[in-house]
């Protein structure tokens, strides 16, 4: 399995997600610097967590103008699978690959803890899960926002993938992760790559990556 993990200046979860994909999925991981464009078709492209370009102006806003993101948009439009985690989710919304935006947490506090995710039944991903998932979050700007019309469309099309059991950040409709209409682009604030080490007692993140690869 070939995977590209795009690294931006300020990404800090690129090696985390790359190493778990290598260790648990035997993936051939290519770390793609943001200035590199690509035209191959890997099995998965990951936009990792972190603080791309220092999160200046808005989280994820600068990243969308990079050469690698132009390639990611073309790849996604051809049906390629993309996972955006945390800052990667913010980049996906800023790039227009996913609708909506991520706002400051309602409490204005940076939140770092395990949360319970509820896979949404109407979504194609949910058939891969049994029950809730426990995954860590770590973000200051993770409150999902979209206008009423967009939210209605997301719900109607089954694009809401995960909701929080207990909403930590003020996300509308308790949204923790969404996908595009085709289901090949998934953005989520929780970090599945941080729940993939048996020594920490958490492996639910593996289920999410498996679901994305199988879906």
């Amino acid at each position: 399995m070939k995977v590209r993990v795009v690294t931006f200046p300020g990404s800090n979860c690129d090696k985390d997600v790359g190493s778990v994909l290598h260790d648990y999925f035997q993936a051939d991981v290519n770390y793609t610097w943001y200035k590199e464009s690509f035209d191959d078709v890997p099995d998965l492209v990951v936009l990792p967590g972190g603080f791309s370009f220092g999160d200046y102006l808005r989280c994820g806003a600068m990243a969308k103008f990079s050469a690698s993101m132009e390639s990611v948009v073309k790849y996604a439009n051809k049906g390629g699978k993309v996972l955006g985690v945390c800052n990667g989710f913010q980049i996906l919304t800023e790039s227009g690959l996913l609708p909506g935006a991520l706002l400051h947490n309602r409490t204005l506090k940076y939140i770092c803890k395990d949360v319970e995710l509820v896979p949404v039944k109407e979504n194609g991903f949910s058939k891969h899960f049994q029950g809730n998932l426990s995954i860590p979050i770590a973000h200051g700007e993770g409150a999902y926002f979209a206008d009423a019309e967009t939210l209605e469309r997301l719900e109607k099309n089954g694009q809401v993938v995960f909701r929080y059991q207990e909403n930590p950040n003020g996300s509308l409709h308790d949204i923790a992760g969404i996908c595009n209409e085709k289901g090949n682009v998934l953005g989520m604030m929780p970090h599945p790559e941080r729940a993939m080490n048996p020594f920490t007692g958490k492996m639910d993140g593996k289920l999410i990556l498996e679901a994305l690869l199988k879906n």
Partner: protein
Amino acid sequence: MFVAKINVTLKESVLDPQGQTVLRTLHDQGKGQVQDLRVGKYIELKLNVSSLKEAESIAKEICESVLVNQVIETYKLVVESQ
């Protein structure tokens, strides 16, 4: 030379927790006269172009492609000659 002065704020429909926190502090200080408060950002561009019309057009394009996320934000743009 022209200067584009841009004020970016969250849309009225978007909760501004930063503004609400500052407002609460002002109320705690007895400044109950303050009815509402929104926190935004101010951006200034210096443009080396030959006409005001051109400066306005470029500044507007930059606002809408880079500086403002129109899903959540709105902006006011004023261009002055310098």
